[in-house]
């Protein structure tokens, strides 16, 4: 392929630098350009994952029990600026996400302002640099004061509408008197509070669907409605706000009477993976007691200050009773407690809902795949970044100083190569107790630097005798300056190619690690972990297997093709 001259591969255009030439050559290759675009799209999708596939509602209105005022929060916004996991890749991609908003926000006005003013190219360059830097800084602002954003995003409506407050009070009174029970109470309360706030959202019908992404909803059923107004009281026992995170499908336990819960909606036999049947109550409402399943004389004791009882083996037809001390909740009325049956269900893909199906915990596959792309993409970039830096440093030392340094480093490289790298990574991960995605990145980075080091060493050996290096030395440049300012830029080409292939293999490594259970800790969605679920349900859930695998394949192929294209673009035989 190399010696068929491309029709549009002209020689250096005037004033064109080496990298501009490479970029032009790269763009001329169709497959490489497509794969580069795919990578960019993957990154954008990863950045926008919380908007596309969130487990958080855009807004959340709640009327706390017994109160006649609504509280509105914006969980998605809070999540964007203060991710739940303390230190994770979420920050990085959330920053990207906000950056994609601020970048056009800043750069577009800047462009419009300076357009047609006949500015000198230098001034244009200066302005655009400022604009981009400004966008970066603006995107970083919310992260510096997440508390401010969170507070600003919480709104308490103190009986804004007197009529609504009145109606709500009446409903509470009826409920307390026992006239309004069960579903009717919740419905009445929901209707009463459905005020005409959020006009814009309402006109888009968004107030009915507070999740921006309906297609990738992490949950099921009519959960959105409940998300706006979680049922506030006891009888119809359903999810409360607490149970919505971590995302999962929570089946229902139908509770017909106060304090007695008939287990009706659990499939028999329980599907694999059912882990929890909980009775949940908040501390100030119940205080210790027993939960009993009468049919099998099973009893679970709830400690004085425990809030949930876990009944692992509830079955359909069971009647569970709560028998315990009951503390009247503030404001009177019935105490709230909630039965929460985790009835995960792996659903096949459907056009109406869950485009790619759900996993065995009932979580949407597409949503998890989008969130998982954050892990895979960042592992690829960060670990390769680590080992390229290491490799440049070590290989550069060996190639520049030669002699004993070279000997020692060459032996070190030979030694590290002897360890099968995937094996080595696994063993190190197995010896370290704490699991985190950063550890995976670090270990991949620390074990895979040999290839780059060899490459750089070879380039340095080759270049260190060139005239430009000698002249730099004659000018009195120090070793460090010669190494990193003079030689390194000339040696970067092969390293970039190796890095592109390296990202591909790092993505593969990470997904293999996740598949084996040594990747990011469990609630984090990763592609490999999803495939593991697919393997465990191999008889039924093909969608768990096919889609995440295809994502890995797509990403790896894109990186490999881009690396291939880059190598061809840098091939000196192409520059004619």
């Amino acid at each position, binding site marked *: 392929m190399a010696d068929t001259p491309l029709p549009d591969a002209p020689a250096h255009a005037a004033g064109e630098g080496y990298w501009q030439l490479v970029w032009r050559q790269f763009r001329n290759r169709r497959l490489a350009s497509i794969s580069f675009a795919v990578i960019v799209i993957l990154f954008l999708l990863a950045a926008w994952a919380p908007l596309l596939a969130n487990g958080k509602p855009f807004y959340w209105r709640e009327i706390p029990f017994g109160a006649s005022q609504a509280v509105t929060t914006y969980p998605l916004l809070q999540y964007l600026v203060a991710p739940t996991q303390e230190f994770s890749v979420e920050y990085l991609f959330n920053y990207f996400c906000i950056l994609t908003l601020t970048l056009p926000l800043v750069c577009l006005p800047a462009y419009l302002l300076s357009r047609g003013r006949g500015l000198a190219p230098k001034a244009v360059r200066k302005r655009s640099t400022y604009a981009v830097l400004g966008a970066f800084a603006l995107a970083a602002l919310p992260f510096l004061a997440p508390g401010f954003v969170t507070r600003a995003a919480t709104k308490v409506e103190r009986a804004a509408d007197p009529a609504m407050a009145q109606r709500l009070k009446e409903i509470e009174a009826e409920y307390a008197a026992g006239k309004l029970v069960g579903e009717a109470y919740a419905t009445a309360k929901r209707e009463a509070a459905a005020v005409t706030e959020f006009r814009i959202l309402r006109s888009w019908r968004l107030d009915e669907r507070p999740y921006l992404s309906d297609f990738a909803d992490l949950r099921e059923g009519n959960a959105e409605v409940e998300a706006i107004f979680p049922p506030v009281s006891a009888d119809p026992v359903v999810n409360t706000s607490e149970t919505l995170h971590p995302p999962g499908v929570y089946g229902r336990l139908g509770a017909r009477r106060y304090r007695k819960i008939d287990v009706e909606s659990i499939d028999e036999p329980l599907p694999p993976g059912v882990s929890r049947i909980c009775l949940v109550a908040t501390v100030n409402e119940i205080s210790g007691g027993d939960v009993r399943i009468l049919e099998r004389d099973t009893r679970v004791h709830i400690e004085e200050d425990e809030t949930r009882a876990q009944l692992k083996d509830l079955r359909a037809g069971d009647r569970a009773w709560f028998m315990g001390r009951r503390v009247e909740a503030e404001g009177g009325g019935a105490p709230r407690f909630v039965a929460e049956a985790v009835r995960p269900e792996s659903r096949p893909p459907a056009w109406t809902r869950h485009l790619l199906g759900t996993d065995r915990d009932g979580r949407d596959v597409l949503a998890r795949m989008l969130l998982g792309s954050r892990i895979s993409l960042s592992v690829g970039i960060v670990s390769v970044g680590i080992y390229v830096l290491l490799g440049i440093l070590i290989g550069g030392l060996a190639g520049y100083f030669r002699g004993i340094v070279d000997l020692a480093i060459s032996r070190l490289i030979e030694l590290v190569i002897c360890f099968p790298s995937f094996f080595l990574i696994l063993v190190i991960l197995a010896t*370290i107790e704490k699991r985190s995605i950063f550890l995976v990145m670090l270990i991949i980075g620390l074990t895979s630097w040999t290839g780059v080091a060899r490459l750089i060493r070879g380039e340095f050996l080759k270049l260190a005798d060139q005239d430009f290096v000698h002249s730099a030395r004659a000018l009195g440049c120090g070793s460090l300056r010669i190494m990193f300012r003079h030689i390194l830029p000339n040696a970067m080409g092969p390293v970039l190619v190796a890095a592109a292939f390296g990202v591909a293999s790092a993505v593969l490594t990470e997904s293999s690690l996740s598949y084996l259970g040594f990747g990011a800790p469990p609630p984090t969605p990763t592609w490999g972990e999803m495939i593991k679920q697919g393997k465990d349900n191999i008889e039924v859930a093909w969608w768990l297997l096919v889609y995440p695998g295809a994502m890995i394949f797509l990403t790896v192929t894109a990186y490999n093709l881009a690396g291939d294209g880059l190598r061809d673009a840098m091939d000196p035989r192409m520059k004619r």
Partner: protein
Amino acid sequence: MTAYILKRLLLFPVMMLAITLVSFTIINLAPGVSGSSSATGDASAQRMTRQQLKTLRETFHVGKPVHHRYLYWLGAMQPEYRPETLTLRLPFSVAPDAVPGVRTVRVRFAFQGAIDEAERMERVRAAKKAEETLVPAWDEEGCYPRGSAGGELELEIELQKKALFLEAPPSPVFRNPQPLAEGSPFSWALAWERPTAEQGGGGTLLLQISSAESHYLLIGGEAAPVLEVTGDVSGMSFAPVEVPPAPKRGVLFGDLGKSVERPSVTVAQRLWDALPITLLLNFISILVIYLASIPIGIYSATHQNTMLDRSSTVVLFMLYSLPSFWVAILLLKGMVVLKNAGLPYLPIQGLLPTGADDLPTLEYLYTATKHLILPVLALSYGALAGLSRFMRVGMIDIIRSDYIRTARAKGCREPRVIFKHALRNSLIPVVTLVAGLLPSMIGGSIIIEQIFGINGMGNLAYTAMLTRDYTILMATLTFGSFLTLAGILISDILYVIIDPRISFESGGR
């Protein structure tokens, strides 16, 4: 060339030593293995049972200074011999004219030069001081025999005529164990072994010292056992006491410790059982890779830019990007689908079905092959794709070289040009790539063996990772690296042997 090969061969043991050092450093990160964890109350160390911790300590000599631990583990230094049970043998022979019948012998036994309690405490203190944070596990659990240890026991021995001892002697039974000293955790008992035919009318007096609560005995050096036999010993002559020699410890002597999860089996045994399977799998895969990729490469190079070449290039590129575990699971899934559809399918679990050993040879081979197809496929396709691309590029380069043009010009027919002239040279870089394949194959076999339920080294390592069986982990890591090192060595030597153009000596040829 000889000098180069010699240099590589000399470097080999050094590299092996370096590998053991690195492995030891890595495993030292593990909780329970590193010295400090037992004192700081590491959470995961606490999760282990006492027995598991003991196995770890025994294998990695927890409680000693780090460099000593490495040397002990390696076998360059031998630790003190600390058996839980010690059986001393005292052979005796009987004079021909001795009177047969039941005799009662009395055995007096003591540890000569055993240290007393005060000295023991002194040692513990010294060890504590040296380790600072560490409560020395050895001395906590182990126990030196006290100075007063010893005593006297009686035993009845039945002397018979020589002719009667032709059949194999029954195994000796130790009866009535006595505590070695007041309050000592050790007890001792006597037994005697009937002689074998060669020994004539003699026999062996056996003295067993064992600990009730898995304490250790310290044998050798200061604490040499002394025996004195009295009683009715007329006509019997006793040989000097035989103290069983301390077994050689350390990797150099093939001792890799015991499995933490299953202490009844040694790591070496489990590794030895698993190694042939992995080697077989990898060997077949490498064979398949070469047998497939070389023809593909040749075809693509000779039919450059044809439809088939282009499509095969694309397909191979895609194969190269496919995650192997995904492909393996898809294969499994495919087999499940075939099975459910009632179509013929390949087995997906293990290498052989139960009871396969009883099958006739041909059928055995047939079954084994059927079981091997999927794992080998999953293990080899990635490298196959890479290697064919490599082969194609190399072949194209060679086909364009001058000597091929010459061969064509002198009228060689095309197959002869390709297979006689071009193939040999294009094979050189490909053959030497086998070393590069090895690490990824060994890494890959972890996943493939886990998916297909093959009990090779990969699966052994994976199980060890899940159960935190560090002794096995350590052994597999070290051995995997040894294999790779050997592979690299072989391919380097092959490289200089088959390619006369390469020379590593200064000055060149």
